[in-house]
């Protein structure tokens, strides 16, 4: 398991120009929105500065001309500025919203796209929850930071420049004094924004621990009661909530110091303007309107600088999210068609769709049929683990049913995953009719498989939609025929809406046995060349098991099948049983042959037999 990343690590000391360059290049795809956003942000800054200048103009006017001042012009200019500013605000919120959401949409689509093609080994090391966070909050955050950051940085820089320029033009000596407030203001803002970001992360961290604590308390409540741990648990929880309290108060205090501090800096600047400017005004070297404008402007620096500091800090904070998302986009699938295969598919002139024409040819122009399957001296290991298979050899004839039995971790499921090319051998070859399967199109091979896994996974939707997943162009009649063949028809038609009944999230409105029956129908509908069952009957009740058993005959017929199983009824059906352990075949033969031998299979068989019989005795009520 990955250790919890340190907060400080997430917070890189400097902005990574390369990363943000890459992200920004993506944003540039929305140039038609980005350029107007830039223009609007600058316009807003100009309007903001315009208000202070208007105030100056109005005050100077009324002081000099009294009732003769041009009030109509004042009203017109003020209204004009107000309407322009409000329109610009409308436009920039709308534009930034569009940019951020379109970017998030596109990045998310590309990530999703990439995930569909990445190999299983990629998913082995990354929990689903982790990946979901990448596709949801990380994508949103990255796009938000880019869009609003771009807006605020443009606005902030323009505004600071506008204020500074206006001040310097009005009176460059006094202007210099007031602009001198900018560097300390920027330093204080940057320092506090960073502090507050760190402490708010700390709060989030404790908060998720508290959530986990509640979860555990509720799920483990009976254990807590029976161990009479109520008091101790509360003590542990109180420590956690105490840490959260401390972090929250710290964050609040940072906030409470920061704002008064920058406001004081603003007062200092305004005070300096009043002092020096007041002298100039009293001797008539500066108008009183200019003095008021100076005091106003001096207090205005805080807003753009605070916003700049905030956005830059956010970018620093979002850097880790950015790296994860951009890293995902840059990950190339390790298992994919080679150039030679792609070339052959192109040359054959047909798209590599799931259903090639019935001419008996696969998209690469080679025969569509799959006959003999051979493992030749196959070695395999997961990532950096020890070898699971080494020097493994196996020949399976067309139409043969192979049962794989043996202790867990012995390599049974690995053999199956290799057949499906979910993983590729790290050494040796797997040959389909004498051709290394890496020389055939991946999409073609996988569309020729029918797989039933230990834990049946259904998708939200109706029963019919779930069965149709096996073959998208299947008719309703074909779907129902497949369901009948695996004996799923009975319970489906008893459901409220029959085939149109909703199965719920992950199929949770159905029992495991019912889900498994549907997944059998789904696999059968695909009319696969190779049929694979991975512990498909180990997690279901006896009743569903019996239904499946009687349907298996029709599934195995005419197909090469690989079956990993515990249940004896399934195993006995196989043409050949392989006892797999320690990455090799320990025993091989038919049920009778292996029993006679009295070896591993014999002992596996007897213990499994006892277990099944005991379960059966308890399932029936005693007379």
């Amino acid at each position, binding site marked *: 398991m990955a250790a919890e990343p340190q907060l400080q690590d997430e917070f890189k000391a400097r902005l990574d120009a390369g990363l943000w360059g890459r992200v920004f290049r993506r944003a540039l795809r929305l140039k038609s929105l980005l350029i107007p956003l830039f223009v609007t942000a600058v316009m807003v800054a100009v309007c903001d500065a315009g208000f202070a200048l208007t105030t100056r103009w109005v*005050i100077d006017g009324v002081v000099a001309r009294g009732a003769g001042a041009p009030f109509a012009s004042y009203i017109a200019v003020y209204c004009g500025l107000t309407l322009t500013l409000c329109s610009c605000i409308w*436009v920039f919120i709308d534009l930034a919203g569009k940019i951020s959401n379109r970017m998030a949409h596109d990045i998310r689509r590309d990530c999703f796209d990439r995930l569909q093609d990445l190999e*299983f080994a990629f998913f082995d090391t990354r929990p689903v929850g982790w990946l979901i966070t990448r596709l949801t909050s990380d994508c949103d955050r990255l796009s938000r930071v880019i869009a609003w950051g771009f807006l605020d940085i443009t606005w902030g820089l323009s505004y600071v420049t506008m204020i500074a320029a206006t001040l310097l033009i009005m009176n460059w000596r006094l202007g210099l004094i007031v602009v001198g407030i900018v560097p300390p203001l920027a330093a204080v803002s940057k320092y506090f924004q960073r502090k507050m970001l760190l402490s708010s992360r700390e709060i989030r961290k404790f908060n998720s621990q508290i959530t986990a604590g*509640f979860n555990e308390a509720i799920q483990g409540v009976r254990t807590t009661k029976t161990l*009479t741990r109520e008091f101790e648990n509360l003590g542990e929880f109180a420590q956690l909530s105490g840490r959260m309290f401390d972090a*929250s108060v710290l964050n609040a205090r940072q906030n*409470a110091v920061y704002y008064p501090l920058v406001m004081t800096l603003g007062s200092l600047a305004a005070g300096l303007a009043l002092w020096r400017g007041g002298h100039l005004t009293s001797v008539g070297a500066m108008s009183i309107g200019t003095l008021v404008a100076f005091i106003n402007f001096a207090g205005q620096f805080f807003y753009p600088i605070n916003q700049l500091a905030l956005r830059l800090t956010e970018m620093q904070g979002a850097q880790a999210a950015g790296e994860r998302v951009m890293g995902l986009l840059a990950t190339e699938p390790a298992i994919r068609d080679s150039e030679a295969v792609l070339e052959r598919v192109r040359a054959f002139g047909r798209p590599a769709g799931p259903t090639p024409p019935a001419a008996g040819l696969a998209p690469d122009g080679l025969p569509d049929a799959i006959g003999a399957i051979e493992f030749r001296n196959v070695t395999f290991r997961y990532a950096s683990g020890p070898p699971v298979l080494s020097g493994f050899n196996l020949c399976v004839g067309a139409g043969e049913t192979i049962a794989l039995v043996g202790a867990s971790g012995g390599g049974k499921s690995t053999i199956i995953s290799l057949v*499906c090319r979910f993983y590729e051998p790290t050494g040796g070859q797997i040959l389909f009719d004498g051709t290394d399967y890496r020389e055939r199109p991946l999409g073609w091979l996988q569309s020729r498989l029918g797989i039933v896994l230990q834990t049946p996974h259904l998708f939200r939707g109706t029963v019919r939609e779930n069965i149709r997943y096996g073959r998208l162009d299947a008719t309703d009649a074909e779907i129902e025929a497949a369901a009948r063949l695996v004996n799923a028809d009975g319970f489906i038609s008893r459901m409220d809406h029959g085939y149109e009944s909703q199965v719920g999230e992950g199929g949770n409105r159905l029992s495991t046995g019912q889900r498994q029956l549907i997944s059998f129908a789904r696999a059968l509908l695909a009319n696969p060349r190779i049929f694979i069952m991975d512990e498909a009957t180990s997690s279901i009740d006896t009743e569903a098991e019996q239904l499946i058993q009687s349907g298996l005959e029709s599934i195995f017929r005419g197909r090469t099948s690989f079956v990993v199983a515990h249940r004896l009824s399934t195993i006995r059906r196989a043409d050949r049983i392989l006892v797999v352990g320690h990455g090799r075949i320990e025993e091989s033969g038919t049920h009778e042959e292996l029993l006679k031998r009295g070896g591993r299979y014999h002992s596996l068989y007897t213990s499994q037999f006892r277990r099944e019989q005991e379960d059966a005795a308890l399932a029936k009520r005693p007379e």
Partner: protein
Amino acid sequence: MYSQARIIWSIMRGHRMRYGMALACLVVATVINFGGPLVGSAAIDHAVASPPAGAATPRLVAIALRALGGASNLRARLWLAPVAMVVLSVAGGLFSYLKGWQASLASDGIARRLKEQLYDHLNHLPAGYHDAADTGDLVQRCTSDVETARQFLATQVMEIGNAGILACAAFPLLLALDAPMALVSFALILPIVAYGYFYFRKVQHVFKGVDEAEGALTAVIQENLAGIRVVRAFARQDFERAKFAGPNAAYRDRSVRMLRLMSWYWSISDLVALSQLGLVLLVGANRVAQGRLSVGVLFAFLAYLGIMLWPVRQMGRILTDLGKTSVALNRIREILAVAREDDPPSGDTAPPARLTGAIEVRNLKFHHAGMPAGSSGALDGISFSVAPGETLAILGPSGSGKSTLIHLLLRLYDPSGGAIELDGRGLSTLPRKWVRSQIGVVMQEPFLFSKSLRDNLRLGRGDAPDHEIENAARAAGIHETILGFDQGYDTLVGERGITLSGGQRQRMAIARAVLKHPPLLVLDDAMSAIDGETEVLILDALKERRGRATTLVIAHRLSTLARADRVIVLDRGRIIQSGTHAELAGRPGLYRRLWEIQTRIETDLGRDLAG
């Protein structure tokens, strides 16, 4: 709104003083912050320029001027003005800091107390409550609802206080400064608040729509990733891409729509706020032109509006949130209102330090609330007794009431009829926690906490030294497994650590119960995931260790049943057979059928080999 305010008031109990302090600091800070513009005003009018002859100097400005030593002094020492402004700003900032600090202590304190209350309460609610409750919903109430309340208490209560102070303190101050200008300054304040309130009330469904779209999108991603093996197994990548495109676009479009609404909100709200500023500027300028107002006082009014407008613009939104907060608080109070497990009235004779382990069950009846008497897990009048040190095995089909019996013994539920006695004392007269402290129980699906393995074992007995922990682990056949992990006994379990298999969890729970060394040991189908050989080893080790502990064991396997002193067979909440292994094996029934499986294996094998 009155009842909402009352709920919030009651939740503040114990922290009202802090809120009072915070509000007092806020009042002081507000008054001090109002001093700055006054100083500016005095300086502009009396030191920089001279006030118009027609306008009387407002009393407040006069006071400020006096404080600065009078007009001529200020004219000679203009630096006094900026110094006074900075001093006022620092003083105001100090109180504003104190306000923030006190408000945070209060609101985070309330949130902390609520969380701890909820946590403790959940641990003390009856098992029946937890059976019916939905974990996700409970967690949500304990976390996000508390957070909603906290945010409200932290920022919004103070903002409302701020608004009140502006209305009660700022408005009179401004009136004293210049009455017509004060009226103009407040002209659009109420419309701004009302606009925010009604706007956010109206667009709440759009926010909800965005949340729902995000939920739908997350669900599609979650389903795709959880089922990625199925996707590959049928090579359905393109189908999944198409399925994802809809929700992804819907989320984008709804978010864009929400932002569009926000752009309306903020641009109009800015329009009103700027109109308010413009009104003050132009009306003020007009009065200056007529000689009825000085430039300095106009400057002060413009500065005050700058201070006031921002919080006022947030008010509407805050009032909208009031509804959300009271909903959250009600959801929290619903949990706290459920009665805890009760205990016998105190005054009973104190229970003995340790049970001897005699159990007497008489005509025990139970059915779950709302379920008929004959339903699954019900008990329909069972009686038996167990002598100290005896091992009683319980056998029966699922739903026959085996686990219910154990739950009643642990006082997780109370029987609907009959009685259980421990050492001759009625169970209902004994405190629940004491009863549970006397029983070591291992459930079929044991729960481990996300702590280290060592700490999980130590839950059995907090003061157990390491070597006793290891001995218990050895007895439960888990010691070697633990040493096989990278960090041995310090390996973490759960989300941030390793996942144990069902059998490993059962062995951990057995070790935990063994370490507790209780006078009564209960194994509720506790070895179902442990292989037969290991089971026998554990049983022998338990027998050696437990000495005279009375043991109840629910089991299906003959190896376990045969080791018991006595076996009872339950069906539909009744005892249908009881006796020793030898007696039951000789009588027809469930027990004998299990016993016969062994012989059936031999015949079945023979048949397979012959056929």
